[in-house]
């Protein structure tokens, strides 16, 4: 008798190509995301980060092979896939008229039948999700009355309420103030410690460097995948951002700082 083992690779992608409106956006992307790790995706604007995340979630027509926890995504039922993989997009509608509480309960949809109502467990999970993103206090408020950061934390709780082992988050830190960014990092660490796999697109490179591993995209291609602590990852980062950032290590943490252009540097020293 053996307990079911979790595959060591959460997401395995081979030869992924995605075109949007006839324009190729992702070219031949191969990648492997290990289970139980936090992996960040970075790259310049328009590199295809959000497209990659949406394609991995099965939201865009894509060519290539994607397997999720060892199973071919194409052969999964939509409901099973939805329970295995949660996705939170960027700039998606938030349901202005709904209460925060109702929005988070929608995260339980993948666990419900067509006509079945909410179970006690659904309410419990939704409460837990709202508390974990410090959004419990405004559960009764409509989404339309929340600030950008408050709304973001409710949407994050909605994604967490799915209780999927693989979580894809597109810019989860947008609109969040520094204390809540730090809270989000603690939350992600706790999720990963609990065995979940988190893949997040992050705009802020210093935040992205806090992850376990990093995927670097440029012009629709994966140009580097490596550990965030690895100096080769730092060099690859500096390169895709045209040497306009410099990665330093401070108190054992990697930190990206802007670097002034060569011409302005020359002017300043003159």
């Amino acid at each position, binding site marked *: 008798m053996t307990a079911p083992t979790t595959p060591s690779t959460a997401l395995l992608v081979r030869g992924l190509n995605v075109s949007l409106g006839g324009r190729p956006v992702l070219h031949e992307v191969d990648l492997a995301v290990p289970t139980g790790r936090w992996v960040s995706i970075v790259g310049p604007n328009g590199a295809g980060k959000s497209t990659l995340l949406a394609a991995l979630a099965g939201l865009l027509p894509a060519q290539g092979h994607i397997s999720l926890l060892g199973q071919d995504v194409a052969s999964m039922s939509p409901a099973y896939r939805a329970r295995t993989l949660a996705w939170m997009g960027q700039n998606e509608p938030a349901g202005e008229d709904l209460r925060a509480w109702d929005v988070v309960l929608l995260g339980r*949809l993948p666990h419900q039948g067509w006509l079945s109502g909410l179970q006690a467990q659904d309410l419990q999970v939704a409460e837990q999700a709202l508390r974990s993103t410090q959004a419990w206090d405004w559960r009764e408020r409509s989404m339309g009355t929340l600030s950008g950061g408050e709304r973001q934390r409710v949407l994050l709780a909605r994604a967490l309420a799915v209780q999927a082992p693989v979580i894809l988050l597109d810019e989860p830190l947008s609109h969040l103030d520094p204390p809540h960014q730090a809270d989000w990092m603690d939350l992600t660490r706790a999720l990963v410690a609990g065995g979940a796999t988190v893949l997040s697109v992050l705009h802020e490179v210093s935040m992205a460097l806090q992850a376990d591993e990093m995927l670097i995209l440029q012009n629709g291609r994966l140009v580097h995948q490596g550990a965030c602590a690895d100096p080769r990852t730092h060099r690859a980062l500096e390169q895709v951002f045209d040497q306009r950032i410099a990665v330093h290590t401070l108190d054992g943490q990697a930190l990206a700082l802007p670097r002034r252009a060569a011409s302005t540097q020359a002017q300043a020293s003159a």
Partner: protein
Amino acid sequence: MKHYWFHRPLHLGLLLGVLTVLLLALGTLAGSGGMDAPPSVLRAWQAGADEDGRMLAQIVWQIRLPRGVGAWLAGALLGLAGALAQSVFRNPLADPYLLGSASGASLGVCLALVAMDGALINVHWLGRLGLTGAAFAGAMLAVVMTAALARGVAQTLRLLLAGVVVAVVLGAGSSLVLQMHPQLLQSMQGFMLGSTAFVGWDGCALMLAALLLGLAVTVALGRLLDGLVLGEHTARSMGLPVDAMRWVLILTVALATGAAVAHTGLIAFVGLAAPHITRRMVRWGARHGAVLAAMLGGLLLAAADLLARLVIAPAELPVGVLTALLGGGYLLWLMRRANDAGVMQ
């Protein structure tokens, strides 16, 4: 914090139900010569009523009651269709006529009138059935054309644009037919302004069937409709069959709109105002929201029908004009209040 008039959807539902029953009862008293006294109407139903009493009973049963019930049903269908359209298009300004059904129904009626070359008032029941069928077929055909032009129902914006194009083209078709047959203008006007005067029990039965079907779809898809609120991508990521749902919902909107328009003509504003007002009175949820919007739409049209009969009795106002005035005025007032409170959304 947003303030709602009703804490629980059930309370609003009960109030709407009570008001509807009162209104329909009041409607049985309203005749062309003003209001009958309740005792005389009640006496007419008792055994051994005199000639006048039997006549009155027949008028109430054959004309006043089906007319009131029909107005309520048509309003409920439009309210339901409006609520579903707003959910599908995630736009509080969406209305049931958005997909070209109104102009399709108009063209259908136009062509049927040409074929019969008769006036709306004078055609007997077979002709009226023909007009109803033509309006319904026209509405459904227009929606199918819109969906075909938009190459499916997957893209909201393309669908809305296709709806506008179909409405303009079919509207031009109606204008052309009327240009060639100017004698039909007056009959056509009755249809364009909307009228509840000719609804009989058979029409009521058809509208009731459409309403029950629409409500069944709404209840079955309610939770999924709520999921659509978070956008198509998020809904898909939660495993919802978004494309299939949209087809079912759009066909339901077309069926409900077609059934209403076929029996009462183009009633303005109920489909837009009913869900909109519901949204402001109680916290929205796709399932109870659509049911309450249907009840409110019914109440609104039944009230407008009663007023249309009384305001300039013995003549009648076109009911569509009244719905536009009542619904539009109320909505404007609500928006003004919201503006004053600084919570305009």
